[in-house]
Structure formats: C-alpha cells, structure tokens
C-alpha cells in the first residue's frame, strides 16, 4: 500500500466577494492523495483552484472545510521545514544577491550560518547559477529568477517540493533544465507536487496527475493508466517508407500483434485534458 505524503479530504474554499459576502467557490470538496516519491502534476485551466490548493497546503490560506494533511499532520510552521516551495512568478528581494537569498532561505529553515552558506552555493551550482550567485537578483533574467526560486526551495533538503508553474515564462532550454532538476529531485527520493499548464512538461515528468476543473477533481491517478500507456508500445523506425511499413505491419499481424498508426503511444495528455475539462 503506498504511503501518502499529502492527503486532502473534502477540501472546500470560498473567496468572499462584495458586501453581501457572496463567495466564489474556488475548491468544491476535492479529495487528493500524493504518493511518496512521486512527481505529482496538478493540472487545470486558469481559475481551476490549483494555486489555492497549494496555498492551503502551505498554510498561506485557510480552507472553509475539509482536511489537509502533509506528512500525516496539519501544516504548521515547524512542518514547513520539510517542505520546499517555489511560488508562481516568484518575487525575491531585488537588493539581495542570489547567494544571499538562498542562504537566507536556508537560515530561515534552521540551518546554521556556515552550513547555510555552503548549502546555498551547492544549490545554486545545481541549478546552473554558480557563476551568477553574487549578482543582485534585480539584475537577473526571468529564467534566472526561476532558478533561484528552485534553489531556495531545495536548499534545506526538504522531503516534499511544491512547484507552482515551475516552467512558466521559461525558454525551451530553461524549461528542459527545470525538468532535469525536477527529475533529479525525484532521484534523490523527494516527492514533487507541481502545478502546470504545459501538458508536454507534465506528460514527460509526472508519474501521477490530478486534473482540476471548476474547483473539482475531474480526473486523477497514475498517468500511465489514465493515458492507457501500458496497452500500447511505440516502435520508432528510421527510413521506413510506405511499402516497408506495410510489410512490418503484416509481420506484426502474423505475430499476433495489432499494429496501429504510427505516432505517439496512448492518448496525448493534451487531448485527454481537453476531454475531461470540457
């Protein structure tokens, strides 16, 4: 039986609006379980409630009802020592250097100053900012700010890393580097919860997903089973023209294997996403 790092039960959140207090229902009784060691993708269109769910998980916002457990406990400042968080469009103190910002984060998480300094250097090296560590954040590009964000979220070696739109605004190289960093985090045994709009990113990275739509979970589970990946296999062929493909297809049929059209295996996530959200 899998161990769950995050367990959300019947979570409801209203945002008050106007003097009559008519609320906007941001989360409508969602249930969610994030298995230990997974890369869990939280998907959904704008306003679906992804960031609200993340903020409730971190204790930055309060739910109206429902239960939200992280490591089996209600979130508290002490519990946040085990969590790293990269906010959506992160803003950091522009007058600090990247190194000072990451060291500050490490110190706030309880590390001694000397340990925090060495951990900050290491974290910045890992995200590829070793050379720019002593430059002021105000002079960083958006991609560099995002990298500092990842460094400050992971500098204290947390068990759970929450990334809100980690590749938002990054160029393809930056996005690929971010994806590598996320895979590395999983390789280190950490659980990653990430929200994203970028389907290809989620498809290539995540082991599990939940799709939020209008404050409800439209679908959730293991990505392979949701996309029926296990049933199909992709065979990549180089230099096969129509005639050869026909022969290969016939051979496959003779082997008792049904050859489908060439292309990606399973249902593309983007197509699946549109199907469940609409």
């Amino acid at each position, binding site marked *: 039986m899998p161990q769950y790092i995050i367990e959300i039960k019947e979570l409801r959140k209203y945002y008050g609006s106007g003097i009559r207090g008519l609320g906007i229902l941001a989360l409508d009784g969602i249930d969610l379980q994030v298995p230990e060691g997974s890369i869990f993708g939280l998907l959904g269109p704008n306003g679906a409630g992804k960031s609200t769910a993340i903020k409730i998980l971190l204790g*930055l916002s*309060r739910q109206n009802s429902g239960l939200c457990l992280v490591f089996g406990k209600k979130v508290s400042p002490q519990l*946040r020592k085990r*969590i790293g968080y990269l*906010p959506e469009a992160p803003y950091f103190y522009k007058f600090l250097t990247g190194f000072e910002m990451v060291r500050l984060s490490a110190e*706030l998480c*309880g590390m001694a100053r000397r340990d925090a300094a060495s951990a900050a250097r290491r974290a910045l090296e890992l995200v590829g900012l070793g050379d720019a560590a002593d430059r002021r954040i105000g002079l960083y590009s958006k991609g560099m700010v995002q990298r500092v964000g990842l460094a*400050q979220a992971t500098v204290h070696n947390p068990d759970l890393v929450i990334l809100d739109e980690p590749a938002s605004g990054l160029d393809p190289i930056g996005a690929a580097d971010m994806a590598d960093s996320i895979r590395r985090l999983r390789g280190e045994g950490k659980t990653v919860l990430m929200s994203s709009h970028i389907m290809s990113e989620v498809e290539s990275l995540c082991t599990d997903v939940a799709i939020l739509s209008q404050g409800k979970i439209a679908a959730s589970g293991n990505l392979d089973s949701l996309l029926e990946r296990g049933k199909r296999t992709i065979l990549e062929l180089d230099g096969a023209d129509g005639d050869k493909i026909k022969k290969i297809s016939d051979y496959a049929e003779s082997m008792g294997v049904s050859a489908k059209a060439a292309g990606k295996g399973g249902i593309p996530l983007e197509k699946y996403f549109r199907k469940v959200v609409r």
Partner: protein
Amino acid sequence: MRNALLIASNTFRDAMRQKLLLLIVFIAAILAGLSKYMLRFDLGHEKLKFVFDFGSGAMTFFGALIAVTATCQLIHSELDNRTIITLLSKPVNFVQLAFGKLLGVCGALAVFAIIVTAVTCLMLAITEFEIIERAGGKIPEGLLNPSWSGIACWALIQWFKLATVASVACAICAASSSLMFSVITSFMVLAATMARSANIWFGSDENLATQLTGYILPNFEIFAKSELFAFAGVNAMTFAATIAYSCVYIAACCGLASWLFSKREF
C-alpha cells in the same frame, strides 16, 4: 527568535536603501545642526535649552515621519511584491514576521536617533563653548549645564517613542490592504495622540474622549517627561517606567499585528 532577527536584518537593509528615509534623516540632521544659527529667533529661552529643544523637535517631527512612512512602506512592499509568500512558506510564524519587520524598522529608527542626538550634542557643546569663551573663560551665572548621560537616556526614550509609533503603524498595516490607507490612518492616529497632548498642554480638562485616547493610543506625555533629563539628569524611576510603558505598548501592538496577519489570505 532567530527567524525574527533574520527578517529584521533583511528589513533593516531594505530600509537603508529607501531614498525617502535617507532624505528625511539628512534634513533632520541639517535642522538639528542649524539650531545654533537660529538663536536669533529665540524669544527669551536659555540658549542651550533652545538648541536642545531644536534637536528634540527634529527628533519628534522627523522621527514620527520616518516611523510611519518606513513601517508602512516596508510592510506593504513585502505584501505587494509577494515576497511575504516566500517568507511564510518557510518555518516562520506570524509573531516572528511582525516582530522581525518591526525590529528592522526600529534598527533604522536607531540610526536616525543616533545621528540627530549626535548632531544635537555637537551643537550643544559648540554653543556652550562659545558662551563660556565670550564670558572670558568663566561659566556665566545661570547657564544650564547639559547632562550628557541625561541626553543619552532622553535619546533612548525618544527611540522607544518612535518604536511605539512604528508598532501602531505595523498593526494598521497588518489590517490594511493599501499603502495609502495605512499611511493616512497612521498619521491620523498620530494627530489624535498629539491633539490630546496639546489639549493637556493648554490646560484643558480631561474629558471622556481624551481619557479614552490616553488609554488606547500611545501617551506621548509619558515620553515628554524625559526632556527634563537633558539638563536635570536622569530620574531612574521615570526612565524605567517610560521604557516599561513603551515595551508593553509595543508588545501589545506586535501581538495585534501578528493576529491580524494570521487572519489574512496570502
């Protein structure tokens, strides 16, 4: 406590970069430095008392200006720039946040108080030296003798007074969502406090309104007593009572700010 100090040192660093704050410190120092040259406008006060009152005025007026604007600016920049989300996603609670921000502002106020006090002391020393020199090296009869330790204690109490004003602004910022609202409300509180002091100064009887403001808003009359220290020396009882009053008031405002922060959505 460690996290509060980390937030405070960061806030102090941010404060020292605020151009408006540095400009106010500069103007206050210049004004305190000009006190000796304003003696011609003196209407019969003892010269050294006049110089000290000038420095005291600069400390009160510009100090209050810095206490309100710096506190509101530093807290609202944290809220508006969403750096507060990065802070609160760490093991930081609301008490540490409010206390850290306030402590950082108090650091900036300490720099201001030290500069104004140093300039005031310098002006007092120069004026005293000139008076004695003009009297042929003898101390003229009736010349007030500045108590340097008394002035140091007065400066410390003034710093506590400014910290008290900053703590009120901090509590207002914790409840408000706009910088403008926080600044205006803080100045209104300050005006109400000063109106009460002026009411007492002009000998009016205390009514229910002034009594209430005296209990709820900071009572500047308590801090004003320390001005006597400059020439009469330190009254230990008054000194301790004033600091105790200030600490209790700051702690109450800090607690209120923490509670209000905890009720916010980030």
